[in-house]
């Protein structure tokens, strides 16, 4: 299990591919589920977001995400997990977050990956500041995604 919080840009597919080659035993995991969050150039109806600054609480952020991953490994039949999260200045189309989990069975991989990213969105100490055409603003909670989560609960694909 590995949690990386970094300022540097990263290629999420390269990261997950390299981690698997280094850390996963061959032929033992049946499925891996990966979530990649990418910076959009719009948010909450505001277009033309030129860039974003992601603040965090150094130390607590890593500790919190590590605990969540450990919980996921315990709660589901998950073999390994990798989380990479950017902080600092982020440009549109940059990958912000990668959550990858490996399991013998796909349903558990989906559940565990979703559990980690949901917790990360709602509990890990990160804060977004966006630069719009009208100036800078702190983003006020993941409201749009909360609505999407609710929608999802009513419409689960099984």
């Amino acid at each position, binding site marked *: 299990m590995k949690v990386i919080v970094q300022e540097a840009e990263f290629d999420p597919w390269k990261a997950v591919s390299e981690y698997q080659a280094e850390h996963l035993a061959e032929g033992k995991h049946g499925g891996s589920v990966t979530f990649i969050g990418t910076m959009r150039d719009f948010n909450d109806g505001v277009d033309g977001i030129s860039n974003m600054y992601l*603040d965090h*609480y150094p130390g607590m952020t890593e500790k919190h995400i590590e605990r969540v991953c450990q919980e996921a490994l315990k709660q589901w039949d998950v073999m390994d997990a990798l989380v990479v999260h950017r902080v600092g200045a982020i440009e549109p189309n940059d990958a912000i*977050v990668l959550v990858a989990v490996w399991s013998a069975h796909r349903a558990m991989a989906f559940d565990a990956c979703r559990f980690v990213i949901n917790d*990360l969105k709602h509990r*890990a*100490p990160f*804060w977004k500041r966006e630069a719009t055409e009208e100036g800078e603003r702190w983003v*006020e909670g993941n409201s749009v995604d909360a609505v999407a989560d609710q929608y999802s609960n009513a419409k689960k694909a099984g």
Partner: protein
Amino acid sequence: MKIAVKYFASMRDIMGKTDESVELNDDANITDLWAKVSTSTMPENTLIAVNMEYTSQAHKLVDGDEVAFFPPVTGG
């Protein structure tokens, strides 16, 4: 006792600082700490961590604790 206090995101703008060191009486809790650092009521939805773990206002502090105040998170 001595408490290290940190502020993040919009809480930095509200407090006008990023961190400070506060002297408190023994047995003080988070509510007492807030009364010491601010004359306003704590903004609704403020999250509190002691030694990097989420906690509530009733949390009793001990010497050397690191306390952080911050708004709802927006990662991912």
